[in-house]
């Protein structure tokens, strides 16, 4: 399938410009290189946060509790959340795989604004560094949790303003990426690449970009208000001056709930790319999947107050938001049914990316259904702020977005690096990861229903067994993660050379050599049909 022309152009991984080595990467406006810059920085931050999570689990074993103080524990869960949310899960798939593959999938040579794209990465790094530095400067690491709720975030003496400013910069990066992607999709599709001929990953990036555009500025202004409140006491959130702390919660969740869909939509998009390739079948319900992405983006903007069911809103508001929360589950379910139908009667070629894609579907269903449970008002009162919530959002964000990230990485790794990993080693890493994951987070669901509150340093003796199971699970999980990334790092250096199309995929990236040339396409392709047409299907 590879389209090596008579003269072989150098791949994007080779330096051809005046600058060499690190400088060539740091100044490159090639969307593929920027994608990799994001990948490397993101994985690094991810492991920092994993280590923090590991310590947090460890001290829940009572005999290790003396290792840290309760204040440190507060700082740890704040930083774990800030890093995981703002540095890994939110930018995760769009910044890495969106950057790398969006232009390729629509037959373009780059994004619309390549320099802005590089600037977004610098905003990302600046935000990340400011956020991490906030741990070490000032009067102690922020201890508010990643939500920075007022009034505590206004009163605490810790370094909240700096962490908040870091999140502000990260938001900027996210917004600029969104602007870039929307413009790219509108302007740079190859001839014949009509809207409904785009691979569905592009649709998911498109809807994500709109949420980034419409929701992130609200977070930005809210964070600015927190900083102004701390610095000058403007009083908008301070009841002593006539302000209202609930206003903060509204503004925060007006962004942060749609942000949940920023996290999950690209993940769903990646899964939608992977399944047809390994089922050798066209996707079931192309338009349903495309429109459900937009529906999630729309309805998902109207459910934010379900984070505030216990804060004393009016009954009418509660019922409205509860209903809308149930409604937003519908487009997600549409996607799940379409995925399963795609596999039905396909000729399944079982490979590591498919394994992780199926893991995604399984874990995401648990995460999604526990989410619907919380949408019910009466249940919510019982499980609010318990480990049930913690378990739920780890199923969605880690089991969902995280596993989809891994699946996408496995799927596109040969294309990005031109190397193939050891499939056996990946399968071997899956077992501890999957077992550890469920030991850790399913136990949290159970603990939550039993009444274990989240963010507590100590726990009552009746929760001992649960915490022990969860902590042991975290060891398996970390082991699996180390094996997984160890395999990939080894493959990047010493792996066998990958073919242009190792999986038999039919979207545009598989027509290119692995790794692609700097310009992506020697000749811009002309598109004549939908994205998932497998010749095998025609033969019966």
């Amino acid at each position: 399938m590879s389209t090596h022309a008579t003269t072989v152009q150098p791949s994007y991984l080779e330096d051809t410009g005046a600058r060499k080595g690190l400088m060539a990467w740091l100044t490159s406006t090639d969307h593929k290189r920027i994608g990799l810059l994001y990948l490397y920085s993101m994985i690094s931050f991810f492991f920092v946060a994993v280590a923090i999570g590991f310590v947090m689990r460890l001290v829940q074993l009572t005999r290790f509790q003396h290792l840290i103080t309760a204040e440190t524990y507060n700082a740890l869960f704040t930083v774990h959340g800030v890093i995981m949310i703002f540095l890994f899960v939110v930018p995760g798939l769009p910044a890495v795989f969106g950057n790398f593959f969006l232009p390729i999938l629509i037959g373009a040579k780059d994004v619309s604004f390549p320099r802005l794209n590089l600037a977004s990465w610098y905003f990302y790094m600046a935000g990340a560094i400011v956020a991490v530095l906030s741990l070490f400067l000032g009067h102690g690491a922020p201890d508010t949790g990643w939500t920075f709720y007022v009034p505590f975030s206004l009163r605490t003496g810790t370094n909240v303003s700096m962490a908040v400013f870091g999140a502000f910069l990260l938001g900027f990066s996210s917004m600029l990426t969104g602007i870039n992607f929307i413009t790219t999709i509108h302007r740079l599709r190859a001839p014949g690449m009509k809207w409904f001929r785009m691979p569905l990953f592009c649709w998911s990036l498109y809807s994500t970009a709109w949420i980034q555009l419409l929701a992130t500025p609200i977070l930005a202004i809210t964070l600015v208000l927190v900083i102004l409140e701390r610095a000058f006491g403007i009083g908008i959130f301070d009841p002593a001056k006539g302000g209202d702390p609930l206003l903060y919660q509204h503004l925060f969740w007006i962004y942060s709930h749609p942000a949940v869909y920023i996290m999950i939509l690209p993940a769903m998009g990646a899964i939608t790319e992977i399944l047809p390739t390994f089922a050798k079948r066209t996707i079931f319900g192309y338009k349903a999947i495309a429109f459900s992405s937009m529906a999630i983006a729309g309805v998902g903007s109207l459910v934010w107050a379900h984070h505030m069911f216990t804060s004393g809103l009016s009954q009418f508001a509660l019922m409205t938001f509860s209903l809308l929360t149930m409604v937003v589950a519908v487009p997600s379910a549409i996607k799940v049914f379409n995925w399963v139908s795609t596999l039905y009667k396909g000729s399944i070629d079982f490979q590591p990316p498919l394994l992780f894609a199926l893991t995604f579907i399984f874990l995401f269903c648990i995460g999604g259904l526990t989410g619907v449970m919380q949408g019910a008002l009466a249940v919510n009162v019982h499980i609010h702020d318990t480990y049930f919530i913690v378990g739920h959002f780890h199923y969605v964000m880690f089991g969902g977005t995280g596993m989809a990230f891994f699946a996408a990485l496995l799927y596109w790794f040969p294309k990005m690096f031109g190397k193939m990993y050891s499939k056996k080693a990946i399968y071997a890493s899956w077992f501890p990861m999957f077992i550890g994951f469920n030991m850790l987070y399913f136990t949290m669901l159970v603990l939550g229903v039993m009444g274990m509150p989240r963010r507590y340093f100590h726990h009552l003796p009746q929760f001992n067994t649960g915490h022990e199971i969860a902590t042991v699970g975290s060891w398996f999980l970390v082991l699996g993660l180390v094996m997984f990334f160890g395999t990939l790092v080894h493959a990047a250096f010493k792996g066998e050379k990958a073919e242009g199309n190792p999986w038999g995929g039919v979207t545009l990236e598989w027509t290119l050599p692995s790794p692609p040339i700097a310009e992506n396409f020697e000749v811009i392709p002309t598109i004549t049909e939908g994205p998932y047409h497998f010749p095998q299907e025609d033969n019966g």
Partner: protein
Amino acid sequence: MSDTTHAHAVHRDDFGARLGMWLFLVTEMVLFGGLFIAYSYMRSQYPAEFHHAGGELNATLGITNTLVLLTSSLTVVLSIVAIQRGEKRKTMAFLATTLGLGVVFLVIKSFEWATKFHHGLYPNAQHLATLPHGEQVFFGLYFTMTGLHGLHVIAGLSVLAYMLVKVAKDEITQDRYVHLENGGLYWHLVDVIWIFLLPLFYLAA
């Protein structure tokens, strides 16, 4: 877009550049939108106090500033018309006028702020703390919103000053002026936001 490491084929898409700018303006509108939400909520809580506190502001200065900004938006448009006709000197003159009007706006604004500080009407001031809650919130919002708007004026002026330099260097020309157009769009946004701030604060009384 030029490139430092590998040579892309020269690709120019003025429509795309404008689309990107419009999308950026959307984010700016939503940014202020958050503050407008806060304003409307607070005003519904404290209608009488907002009415009274609005009387403290100098409506004459507010309206003067509105006229200044509206005129500056006109001169930006005129500069774009001039560059389309290839009249470089006129373009630069209109841009310089815009910059001057922007500075006038900031000067008037700073006098206003100074008066408020003089009267002890600023966040954390002892005098303000003695006033009713609604008035404290009003001035908190006033300083936040006009302050953020002021920052946008400064940003807009910097952008337009940069455009002036580019016109002078012939980097913006009769057939390549999308950057100037985008700078102008940003300046109009600054103007539009002010048009909302005027009635919300100065005419609240």
